[in-house]
């Protein structure tokens, strides 16, 4: 099946070449980091995780969101999702690939990566994150590949795939829950120490993931003979609407607890993000962009007219994706470290090499995604003709 990814239009080749160039630049920059150490990043002893871990956290959500098409299709027999289920699964594969790469580039000693397996440590959440992420990657590759291969042959997928599909549903929830536990269980990091962290993560994941899926479906419809179906897009956009509402609601809950209780430690990070703390406020413009985009997205999504219109729906989906990226892929991780445990405000901003490496990883993710989607679409086009 993979051979289908090697033939395509000129446009497809140009796109893949562009991605390869970005991957190459990212890799070259990584070699520089490998040689110099993490000193080339903006991270410090105070903000000891930065852009890499924030991207990782956001992308775990994108990966987990595949369950939003898999669950209705396989458990509730929502037939309209039949055509896009594979897109959800392959999106998960690409997203988890990026997650794993972001973890690797963040390590100070990447060559010792296997120590996590050689000295298994069940009391560390990172150990469990390694297990659930890799497990989820394999589940989605196995399920996606086998279901697609059966479609190509015009037969029903083999029986042994079914239990894997069912397993993948709670597994998707587990990857984002465990990732939230990385943060939610740390004493002295007030911004992260919230019981609704996992719930917030899941809600924002189920907004940003399906929003990206809708955008991808539109791109595929424009460039190929593949049609995801009007009803599928409609259903997905409803999921995005609810998830986005719940996400914004959850952010509101954080605000209430912090500012009504007036406990300084609980207010600090939010103050830093939205209003500035002790004269520091690098993230203020980004966080207000998040707030504005979230409101725009909700207005466009809640109104059925704009939600059902292709153009405004796409704008809404871009707003959802970007706003959730700002909130989770930027603010959440960085603000957890500000102020530091000594209540000093030490700010963080990613450096150019850090952004180059991140861009390279995003390009890698989209490369994997393009290969898998090309394969899936070709098979579907053949099956249709």
């Amino acid at each position, binding site marked *: 099946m993979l051979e289908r990814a090697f033939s395509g239009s000129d446009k497809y080749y140009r796109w893949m070449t562009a991605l390869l160039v970005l991957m190459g630049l990212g890799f070259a920059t990584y070699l520089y980091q490998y040689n110099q150490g*993490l000193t080339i990043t903006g991270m410090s002893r105070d903000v000891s995780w930065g852009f890499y871990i924030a991207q990782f956290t956001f992308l775990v959500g994108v990966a987990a969101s595949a369950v939003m098409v898999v669950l209705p299709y396989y458990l509730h027999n929502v037939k309209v999702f039949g055509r896009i289920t594979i897109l959800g699964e392959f999106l998960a594969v690409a997203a988890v690939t990026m997650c794993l790469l972001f973890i690797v580039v963040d*390590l*100070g000693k990447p060559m010792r990566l296997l120590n996590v397996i050689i000295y298994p440590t069940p*009391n560390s959440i990172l150990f469990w994150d390694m297990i659930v992420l890799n497990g989820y990657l394999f589940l989605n590759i196995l399920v996606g590949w086998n279901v697609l291969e059966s479609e190509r042959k015009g037969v029903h997928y083999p029986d042994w795939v079914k239990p894997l599909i069912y397993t993948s549903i709670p597994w998707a929830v587990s990857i984002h829950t465990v990732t939230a536990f990385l943060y939610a269980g*740390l004493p*002295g990091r007030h911004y992260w120490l919230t019981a609704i962290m996992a719930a917030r993560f899941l809600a924002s994941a189920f907004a940003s993931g399906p929003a990206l899926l809708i955008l991808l479906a539109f791109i595929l419809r424009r460039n190929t003979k593949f049609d995801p179906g009007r009803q599928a897009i409609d259903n997905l956009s409803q999921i995005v609407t609810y998830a986005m509402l719940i996400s914004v609601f959850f952010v509101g809950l954080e605000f209430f607890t912090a500012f009504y209780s007036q406990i300084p430690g609980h207010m600090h990070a939010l103050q830093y993000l939205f209003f500035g703390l002790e004269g520091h406020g690098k993230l203020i413009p980004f966080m207000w962009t998040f707030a504005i985009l979230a409101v725009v997205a909700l207005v466009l999504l809640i109104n059925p007219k704009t939600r059902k219109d292709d153009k405004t729906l796409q704008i809404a989906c871009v707003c959802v994706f970007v706003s959730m990226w700002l909130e989770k892929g930027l603010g959440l991780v960085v603000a957890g470290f500000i102020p530091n445990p000594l209540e000093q405000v030490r700010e963080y901003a990613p450096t150019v090499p850090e952004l180059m490496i991140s861009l390279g990883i995003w390009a890698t993710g989209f490369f994997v995604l393009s290969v898998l989607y090309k394969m899936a679409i070709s098979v579907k086009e053949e099956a249709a003709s």
Partner: protein
Amino acid sequence: METSRRSFLKAGGLCTLGLASLPAADALAQAALPKVMANPTALVGKKWGMVIDMKKCWEKGKEGCKDCVNACHVTHNVPDIGNVKEEIKWIWQDEYEHAFPGQATHYNEEFIHGKKFILLCNHCTNPPCVRVCPTKATFKRKEDGIVMMDFHRCIGCRFCMAGCPYASRSFNFKEPRPFIKTELNQTFPTRERGVVEKCSFCEERLAKGQIPACVEACKPGALVFGDLEDPKSEVRKLLASHYTIQRKLELGTGPNIFYIV
């Protein structure tokens, strides 16, 4: 020889299983490790701790004294990176409102203003850094409760730095060796870039019967080291006769550094 795909996969699966059983085999093999006799002159305790008499430090110490910090950093080849961002510190000084955030009010400012507290790893009874480490590179020694680091096992994920509520951990963002500005201590390892480090309560000195370097260096005797489980130890006597405070006791980490103010 003809090998079918099925039998190849079977053999591959078996090999993977064999590899997976390695850690189990290792765990079993550890039981058979040879026992080494401990140095008879070594200092032994059940739970090492420290009482820091800040009054003594401020009143009897000379202005701007950094003897404890210097002694520690020379002993352990701690590099002087020269910027706040990547600074490496095992023991350091900071003001009251940073050492005990949330405790300072503007009424006690005058009394405490500009006074520096001595900060170091608390060698917690319930250390979050140990709980979060994915490789056991940081661990709590069973015999005496010292929270230690294996520099050769650390993968540099910095989870421990996120976990530590005392900012006691430093990461080697760049190659530290060129920044060791004091004379190299040949008996203590230097570190590589990419690993985390912190105070080890001078476990290497205790093993030779010496007290920690910072304690030894403090001329007014403000730093007192001892076994918290031994009712006759000097630390216990100080704790029995003075009101002491600990950093962020409310987090349940069980810090073992006590301050007399």
